């Protein structure tokens, strides 16, 4: 558990240069700034389980535990209501060793998520979420099925064959989101200037929202602390 704890870093390099060379719809409309910062995830022991202890039988055949971080499951995004179309993406959530990898993906509306099966066994992909209720059915190794998510929201994806498998697809109506790196650093370039609400989200911690004023051409820094405690 301690390994998952990311210690709070205060000093951040101010100079995060954002390159405006890549295509961006916002850039065309108005002045933009960039959003950078760090996310601290404080794991709550009571909410965490050592998987190996709970159902040892279910992880037989898995060669070693993949090094993961809860930061991989965090998404930082602009939560102010805005609709900014952007190019649909195509991302993958692989089904490897009875696990959806990555556990969390964030895409823009209209993007397609593929679910390739890397395992020797059948898998299934389904969701009961309102934003996208679907069932891709069972399929074997090396097959892949895809689903295009048009409606923004949180879509929880499960495997009907392996109840411990789950993944989350976050669909945003805009492209202003990022997943922190292993140190918790994130950067969202070309965010429209102005007062915005920015949230860091984790499936169990929920959202932590900060107000930010994005100034054109400059980098705004935010620090999020996500306690993975019971939000209630």
């Amino acid at each position, binding site marked *: 558990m301690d390994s998952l704890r990311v210690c709070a870093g205060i000093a951040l390099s101010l100079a995060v240069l954002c390159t405006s060379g890549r295509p961006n719809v916002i850039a065309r409309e108005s002045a933009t700034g960039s959003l950078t910062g760090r996310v601290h995830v404080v794991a709550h022991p009571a909410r965490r389980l050592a998987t190996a202890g709970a159902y040892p039988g279910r992880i037989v055949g898995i060669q070693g535990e993949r090094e993961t971080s809860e930061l991989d499951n965090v998404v930082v995004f602009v939560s102010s209501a805005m609709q900014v179309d952007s190019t649909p993406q195509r991302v993958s959530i692989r089904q490897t060793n009875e696990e959806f990898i990555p556990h969390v993906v964030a895409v823009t509306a209209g993007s397609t998520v593929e679910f390739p099966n890397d395992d020797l066994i059948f898998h299934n992909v389904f969701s009961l*979420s309102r934003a996208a209720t679907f069932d891709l059915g069972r399929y074997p190794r090396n097959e892949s099925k895809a689903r295009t998510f048009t409606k923004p929201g949180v879509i929880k994806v*499960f495997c009907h064959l*392996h*109840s411990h498998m789950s993944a989350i697809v976050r669909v945003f109506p805009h492209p202003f989101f990022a997943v922190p790196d292993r140190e918790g650093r994130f950067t969202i370039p070309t965010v429209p200037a102005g007062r915005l609400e920015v949230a860091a989200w984790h499936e169990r911690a929920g959202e932590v929202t900060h107000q930010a004023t994005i100034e054109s051409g400059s980098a705004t820094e935010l620090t999020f602390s996500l306690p993975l405690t*019971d939000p209630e």
Partner: protein
Amino acid sequence: MTTPAASRSPRLLVKVLCFAFAVIGCVIVAVFVLFSWQTNARLTRAVVENMESSQLRFAGIDARLRREHTLQAMALAENPTLKAAVDTYYSERANEHELGQLRSTVETELAKLQAIMAVPALSVTDVRGVVLASAGPNRGDWPAGARVQLRVEENGAPVETVVLRNGHPYRATAVPLVLGRDVVGEFFLASPLDDAYAVNVASEARADIAILLDGRVIASSTPPSQRRALEGVALPLSGTIVLGQDEFVVQRLSSVDSASVYALASVATAARTATSETGWVLLLAGAGALLMAVGGSWWVARTVARPIDRLSNSLATMAKARDFDRPLQPTGGSRELDTLTATFNELRTAVSLAEAESEAAYLGVIGALATALDARDPYTAGHSQRVADLSVAIGRQMQLSDPDLETLRLGALLHDIGKIGVSDAVLRKPTKLTAEEFEQIKLHPTLGARILKPLRFLDAQLAIVELHHERPDGRGYPYGLKGDAIPLFARIVHVADAFDAMTSARAYRGALPVATAAGELWRLIGIDFDAQVVQAMAALPIALTDPSPNDDAAAADRPSSRALVQFPTRPAAHTAQHAHLALRRAE
């Protein structure tokens, strides 16, 4: 010796019997009491042991059931739909009013599972402990939206717990719903801890069951009274408690959170069962022992009492017959009794001797009286003694036994004792008596009998005294008896009396010669005298005194000169020869 009065004391036999019976009865009762006490102690031990084994058995069953429950719960908790629904529900809780479909998905899944499991209540909560849906007959206690405290083990293992829902205690197996490495909710398999459950457990544990939550009885298979009594009793893990007047063995079977399941067994109930089984055996054994006790006591009592009975019977017989001549025979029953017999015999001898002495003294007095009586009249001096001597001689000739001869002698000696009541004037009248005076004389046999009657040892002589003037022809006095109606002794004395009177001088005549007197005897056989007696007398050698002729009255006192004269064996012709005769016993 007095006749033994009917005593009111109990018979020895009865007494010994009662005593022996009481002793053996006491022993039996003591054994019974001891046995009962022992039985109780042993039964308590047995109940405790039974309870311990019951606890072991129950623990085994319980552990198995718990494991099964746990495994079932774990398997059910892996239901992917359930997990997906719960997780999705949680992530979309912000729009709770739009989650009806998710909720009904969970409900449907639970209903399916419940149909398989037949658990009173199945319930699923989200990660906050809020009930999403429930199924089962008791789902009313687990309504959606209600809060249940989460019981999550760090390693995700199922937890046995007691949950209060709507005031009803439930025993629940709580399994976390794990998604990946996170808990997304909890799955409860719950059974109410009610009386039905207690009764069910009781049948498994084979003992009464009480389920306590924080010291309060929440369910039990016992009657309400015992249930009330159990409240507020500090129950030990195992041991005995007293409820009311009954002793109970208590054993804690299992414990979950603050709820404990106790097994209770009444020692008295067990004792009743065991006692009723052995009761008959005990009763029969007791009855047998009592019977043997009666028999044994009877035998002992008889052994002890019988010689005493025999002794007292022979004593009673002896006293009744006034026969103290024969000594008592030793009973041989016991040394004490033999000593008693011997002592009695000594006493008897001493008393007999004393009696004989006093009899002799009596006789001496009476003899002296008779002599004195004879001496009232100079003509009859020595008469009684002579009649006695002659009577004995005749009796001996008639081959009477010695005791009869003694009776005869005494009777003859006393035959004229009644003359004590005849006045001197009549007795000593030298002239012929008037009829009136003769009547007075005739009273003397009756009078004599009356005098001697109180002297019981002279009973045999009474007849001689009373009847010595009776005659075979019935013309005698006082009764005029005839022939054989007159006792032999009286007939003998009558003859001897008449002979002595005839051969003695009287104031109005001289003494008749023996031959003359003998002639008279012969002549009056069958009239005045008995033939047998006269014939016996005729066979006697007679010591004859020959006083001088014409002897006067004074001459009667003199000792006669001795000469043996043969009494005539036949009636002879009358001889005028006068002679003084005196009869002496021929030696």
